[in-house]
């Protein structure tokens, strides 16, 4: 009895501790602030504010945290009916990845109210993963790695093996490429060597995975080893380092991109192999046998994947 009471009080204390930041924030004037879409920020106040003050564009100053002297042009400030919220509309799209700082003059008697708006970083990382996996699927929306895609999507078991090997090699080679790009190529101004260095690293990774797998897990090697040869000259693998170099991703973003790209390739191979297994039983006109029908099926998948294009989770 005594014990359960102790546990109960502990749980309550824990909840109180978790909720306390919320309560502290509620004491302020600004309760909630977030990006609605690329051009709008929604702010919610604790109580009604003066509509004339909150509705005047001149009272606001908005800038990215990194560049405090570049003010973003505000097109409109729409105050809610009850005066408890305002939607700031901007003239040009915002870079919602960055943290934005909003300053309001003369709100509720205060000289200046300052708050910052940002997306959660974990959500952003997850966004990269989902984007590489579905929205920008490397096979169906970026059209990369088609040779291997059409070559090895005949059987489900092959497709799975191939996809897993690809993902592993992609993650390892992307992380290595990130290291080389950031600590060797960029500091010494050797960016023009990107292609040579990346393709060398990819070949090295494949060779290393081959050797390690052979020693550590011969069973796995017997089932996956054959695909490793195919991995070397493939554009999906070399595309990941090139993209991360283009976008200046940090190490976490790189990892997520590689994981998403590999997972997307696995997904595409698996979907295609499921269809291929059925196609073998179907009656296909002789002119369409083999590659032509595979291309048509892939086209239909690509159209289906177009549907992901508006997806935004965070």
């Amino acid at each position, binding site marked *: 009895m005594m014990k359960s009471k102790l546990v109960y009080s502990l749980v309550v204390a824990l909840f109180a501790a978790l909720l306390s930041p919320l309560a502290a924030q509620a004491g302020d004037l600004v309760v909630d602030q977030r990006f609605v879409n690329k051009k709008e920020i929604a702010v919610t106040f604790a109580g009604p504010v003066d509509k004339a003050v909150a509705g005047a564009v001149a009272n606001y100053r908005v800038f990215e945290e990194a560049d405090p002297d570049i003010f973003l042009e505000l097109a409109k400030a729409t105050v809610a009916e009850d005066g408890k919220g305002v939607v700031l509309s901007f003239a040009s799209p915002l870079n919602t990845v960055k943290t934005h700082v909003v300053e309001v003059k003369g709100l509720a008697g205060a000289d200046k109210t300052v708050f910052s708006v940002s997306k959660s970083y974990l959500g952003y990382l997850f966004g990269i993963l989902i984007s590489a996996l579905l929205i920008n699927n490397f096979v169906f*929306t970026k059209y*990369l790695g088609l*040779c291997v895609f059409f070559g090895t999507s005949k059987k489900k078991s092959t497709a799975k093996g191939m996809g897993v090997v690809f993902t592993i090699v992609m993650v390892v080679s992307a992380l290595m490429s990130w290291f080389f790009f950031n600590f060797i190529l960029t500091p010494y101004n050797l960016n023009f060597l990107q292609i*040579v260095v990346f393709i060398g690293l990819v070949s090295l990774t494949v060779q290393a995975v081959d050797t390690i797998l052979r020693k550590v897990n011969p069973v796995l090697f017997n089932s996956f080893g054959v695909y490793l040869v195919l991995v070397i000259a493939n554009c999906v693998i070399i595309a990941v380092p090139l993209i991360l170099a283009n976008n200046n991703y940090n190490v976490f973003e790189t990892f997520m991109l590689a994981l998403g790209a590999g997972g997307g390739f696995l997904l595409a191979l698996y979907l295609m192999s499921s269809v291929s297994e059925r196609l073998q039983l179907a009656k296909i006109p002789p002119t*369409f046998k083999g590659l032509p029908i595979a291309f*048509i099926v*892939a086209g239909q998948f*690509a159209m289906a994947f177009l549907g992901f294009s508006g997806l935004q989770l965070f």
Partner: protein
Amino acid sequence: MANDKTPMQLIARGVLSENPIFRLALSMCPAVGISTTVMNGIMLGIAVLFVQVFSSVTISIFKNLIHPRIRIPTYTLTIATWVTVIDLVLAAYLPEAYAKMGIFVKLIVAFAIITMRLEMFACKEGVKDSFWDGLGMGIGFMVGMMVIGMVRELLGSGAILGYDVLGFKPLLFFILPSAGFFVVGLMMAFFNWIELYYKRSKGVK
């Protein structure tokens, strides 16, 4: 193993009987990805032609110095070097076209067709023949890209090379990226059909 074909025959082989896109079904990615207009096809075709010819010639010159066990890494690095050259040249002199092609110029390094020509031809034959073979394969690739681009541009926006030919837009669908799969698939089926028809008319089963 000496080569007994004349330069003209080598080029014809690359364009027709061993066309990289339609006959060998290699390097499909750009054929689907950026073949929305004829101009894109020509630009990437020129880039591939350049890389193919120069890699073939380089490997052919040094074929006796390359140890067979490290030949594949050697090919890869040779191709990567020439891709870097064309990448920098395009970025400097044709920035607009370069921006359209995006990552595909850099990805020439992973095209199976180039490595395959080095392995099958350039590492055995003389410099001159390798040059003509590379030229044939490059032109074959360019012609393939141009044909796909022409179909898509004509059906999608009713124009060729940016000039309005039809005056109306028959099927906007073809300019969409995913239509690349359909166009290539249908064209392959069309070539298969020609082949079957030809065989049947000759009485071959």
